[in-house]
């Protein structure tokens, strides 16, 4: 790539410093403007949604079931559904993700199969979430006949966040210094003993941070759960993994798509609760990371 000449071709070199610096200042301003636009979008989005949402937020809103009558409608079933799904997703995705990461970092031989596994994980992370919904519908809902249950939803979302968990856990395991492993091997420990007692404890804060961030992605996912049929009217507390369910983002979508203004406000109320949950999860992840950052 050959850069364009700064001075006019052929003629004498003219520095034109003043002009070039003016252009530079304009460019600086434009770039700063782009940063401000991004930050401002975030502020406007949060203020706009909160202004609508806080009007409906109340204890009744949190403890009532959804209803045709806007004044009586709440997000109880959605909150419980989200809690159910998220707990199951964590229980499924965490061991699988950590196991795969440990395999790739500590066990896998450096060969084509390993490279294939790694490329496959990177590509899965880029598959649109709705495609996971199609997979969940065909495999969990239909083939394994789990129906439109909490379990089917949790399995779908677990597969969705698995690549993210694996990649984060791999980074955490890779960051554990080799000297720790050598010391353990030197004392006669086996590979698994070394991993179990030395590598994993040191990597755990990093793994947990990555997992929480992955879960915070799952809690906002809507499309894959719509695919497996979670958009239904639920006016009971889900009591087992095989019960029907709804989740917070789906309840929000449901209200957004209704024409009446009151329902839009309910949607905003749901969004405020969802964003608060996200904030809590992200704050936990950041605190975890900062607390353990200096310990190595």
């Amino acid at each position, binding site marked *: *790539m050959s*850069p364009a000449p*700064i001075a006019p071709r052929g003629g004498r070199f003219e*520095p034109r410093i003043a002009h*070039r*610096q003016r*252009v*530079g200042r304009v*460019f*600086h301003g434009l*770039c*700063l403007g*782009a*940063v401000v636009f*991004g930050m401002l*979008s*975030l502020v*406007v*989005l949060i203020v*706009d*949604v909160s202004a*609508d949402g806080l009007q409906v937020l109340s204890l009744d809103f949190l403890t009532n079931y959804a209803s045709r009558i806007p004044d009586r409608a709440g997000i109880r079933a959605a909150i419980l559904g989200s809690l159910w799904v998220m707990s199951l997703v964590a229980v499924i995705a965490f061991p*699988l993700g*950590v*196991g*795969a990461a440990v*395999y*790739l970092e500590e*066990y896998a031989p450096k060969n084509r199969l390993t490279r294939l596994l790694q490329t*496959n994980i*990177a*590509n899965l992370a*880029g*598959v*649109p979430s*709705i*495609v996971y*919904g*199609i997979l969940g519908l*065909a*495999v969990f809902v239909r083939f394994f006949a789990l129906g439109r249950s909490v379990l089917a939803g949790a399995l779908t979302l677990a*597969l969705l966040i698995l690549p993210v968990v*694996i990649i984060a856990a791999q980074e955490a395991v890779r960051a554990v210094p080799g000297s720790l492993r050598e010391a353990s091997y030197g004392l006669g420990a*086996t*590979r*698994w003993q070394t991993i179990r007692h030395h590598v994993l404890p040191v990597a755990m804060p990093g793994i947990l941070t990555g997992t929480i961030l992955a879960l915070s992605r799952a809690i906002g996912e*809507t*499309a894959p759960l719509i*695919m497996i*049929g979670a*958009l239904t009217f639920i006016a009971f507390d889900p009591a087992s993994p095989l019960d029907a369910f709804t989740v917070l*983002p789906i309840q*929000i*979508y449901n209200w*957004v798509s209704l024409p009446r203004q009151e329902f*839009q406000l309910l949607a*905003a109320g749901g*969004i405020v609760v969802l964003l608060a949950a*996200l904030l809590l999860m*992200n704050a936990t992840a950041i605190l975890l990371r900062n607390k353990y950052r200096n310990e190595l």
Partner: protein
Amino acid sequence: MARGMGSAAMTARADALTARRRLVVQERLIGALLFGCGLVSVLTTIGIVVVLLSQSLGFFGEVSPVEFLTGTRWSPGLSPQSFGILPLVNGTLLIGAGSSIIAIPLGLATAIYLSEYAALRTRRVVKPILEILAGIPTVVYGYFGIMFVTPILRSIFPQTQIFNAASASIVVGIMILPLVSSLSEDALSAVPRSLREAAYGLGATKFEVSTRVVVPAALSGVAASFILAVSRAIGETMAVTIAAGMQPKMSLNLLESIETMTAYIVQVSLGDTPYGSLEYRTIFAVGLMLFLITLAMNLLSQRITRRFREVYE
């Protein structure tokens, strides 16, 4: 007595041997178990491919692939049924292009500012704040699009429809902006200082150094971030379903309602189309198309990063 001691020693040795053997077996088992965890991601890929292909094959048994790929009318629910996917592809690409117009220039400018102009502390604060934008659930962007952006658009262009591609493009653009800015910033920051110093030494201004030295030197990373961002925009579902509507149309007018491939899949699964019917199977064919497009873009992005990465010492 001596014999007893000998046998005790032998038992101890035998015990140690069994313990050791047990350990070896345990090690093998754990290794296999962990390999199994790694295999789940492979099974996921196989699952996606098998489901999409097998169901699509059934669909293409009844609808010719040529009609599917070249038809300009998409109306599986009406009679006469028509299965030309181009209107959905058109809608998807319209959102992809529209959101790129927002995200690519703003994202690159943000990346240049953070990498070249901002103080280290500013960068440390601003980057994670912008990344929050990418973590906000897409259903929230849908709400923001229809409740905030669309009214503004309608006050400027009164002919704007309630559901329109422009508002969806704007919110998706905001959503993928941090993807461009963060990944590009990583690439720009990786350009060695000596290159900048050399340009400054020749009398270049900061603007010239940024646009003619740093950005070209980091071009592979920057381009990869663009492709990844567009691929994300194409796979985006809820924001476009809520804000852009559900009208498959061969239109490039951003102020009209359109339908993307993702929105169509949602539309079918919301309706009461019976599972297994021809109309229902369209979601697998459309899903296959979506999967292939995003996969191609992701692979391209990876290849660009790997093949054209400038290696500096």
